[in-house]
């Protein structure tokens, strides 16, 4: 079973990543131990973006080829992406509380991420309001495409808006070698986790379809 191998690989990578984050890497000199959340936050953000890129690609493929497979792929990726975006907003918030002194601030990146989160929440709201399958897939694909195209425009507008009124500075540079390695391993581990969760969702959805088809047959 391919998925078993993937599960084992992900688990092993996660253990290594956790070891590196909590034991191997030194604490940040300025912000202290809270900086370690950075090794979760950045991979989560990367996965969120990757997941929505997959949604975008599969949505285009759905509108083009009209195979049910593409809709299953797009919606599974959006589910995992929404979970990761939520986690990445939460870890950012946990980090911001001791460092900036607030849970939330309307900084450019925070605002863009929040809008991204809302767009993909809308993706699922739309899906839940349409019962007919083909239509649900078509409309969701449109939202998936529109939402992704919108991301760079949102980022541009918000950056221009906030650079006029500088917010708190997100710390930049000054990563020592151990930190860079830890970050790389964490990113690989989380990417494996994404692929694993994504594959599980796809499998479950395929089974769901088969079950529904069988049920329809009995009636």
């Amino acid at each position: 079973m391919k998925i078993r191998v993937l599960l084992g690989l992900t688990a092993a990578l996660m253990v290594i990543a956790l070891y590196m984050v909590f034991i191997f890497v030194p604490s940040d000199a300025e912000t202290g131990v809270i900086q370690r959340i950075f090794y979760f936050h950045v991979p989560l953000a990367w996965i969120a973006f990757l997941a929505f890129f997959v949604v975008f690609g599969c949505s285009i493929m759905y509108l083009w080829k009209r195979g049910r497979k593409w809709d299953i792929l797009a919606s599974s990726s959006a589910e995992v992406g929404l979970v990761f975006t939520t986690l990445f907003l939460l870890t950012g918030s946990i980090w911001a509380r001791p460092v900036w002194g607030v849970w939330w601030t309307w900084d450019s990146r925070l605002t863009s991420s929040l809008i991204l989160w809302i767009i993909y929440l809308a993706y699922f709201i739309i899906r839940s309001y349409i019962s007919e399958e083909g239509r649900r897939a078509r409309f969701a694909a449109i939202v998936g495409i529109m939402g992704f195209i919108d991301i760079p425009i949102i980022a541009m507008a918000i950056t221009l808006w906030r650079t006029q009124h500088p917010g708190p500075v997100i710390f930049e540079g000054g990563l020592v070698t151990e930190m860079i390695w830890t970050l790389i391993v964490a990113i690989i581990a989380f990417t494996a986790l994404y692929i694993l969760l994504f594959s599980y969702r796809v499998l479950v959805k395929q089974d769901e379809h088969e079950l529904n088809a069988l049920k329809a047959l009995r009636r």
Partner: protein
Amino acid sequence: MIVFAILVIVIFNFAFSGSQQTMVSLTPGMLWVTFAFAGVLSLNRAFIQEKEDNCLEGLMVCPVSRETIYLGKMLGSLFFMLLVEVVVLPVFALLFNVNVISLPLIIITILATLGFVTIGTLFSALAVNTKAREMVLPILFFPIVSPVIISAVSASGRVLGGESWGDIYSWLGIIAAFDIIFLVVAYLVFSVVIDE
């Protein structure tokens, strides 16, 4: 729609009252919240009547492409929204004693309204085909048009603050880019929404 927009303005008057200075700084926000709400309301109507009276089927058997139907509906909505704004802007200027009628502001308004209707027409057609109808449009519309709202509010603020053309160019650029990109994309995918 005009009455709705004026009502929103009157309610803003209760919500925010302050010195002339405060009102000038609040104007861009009030103006664009009014336009965005009035816009969602009118865009919601754009396809509900078509659906209820089966007019959409009539349009679809016309010997024109789906894309032409999109352009027609989009231009129609654009016309009605601009009509609302033509009435609302002077009323706003009168009630709040703020000079909101100037060439830069009119250009911002036209560009931003175009952005509203390009995406709004597509999502409106999408929303009437879902179970929740009126609920769906705002959920899709507001996050997607957020760059237009941000840019329009910031640019209007700069115009009212007496800044020169150079300061609003970058904002106008973002709105124009949004208009062009989404006009093309919505034009291309519209047939996916209305074809059964």
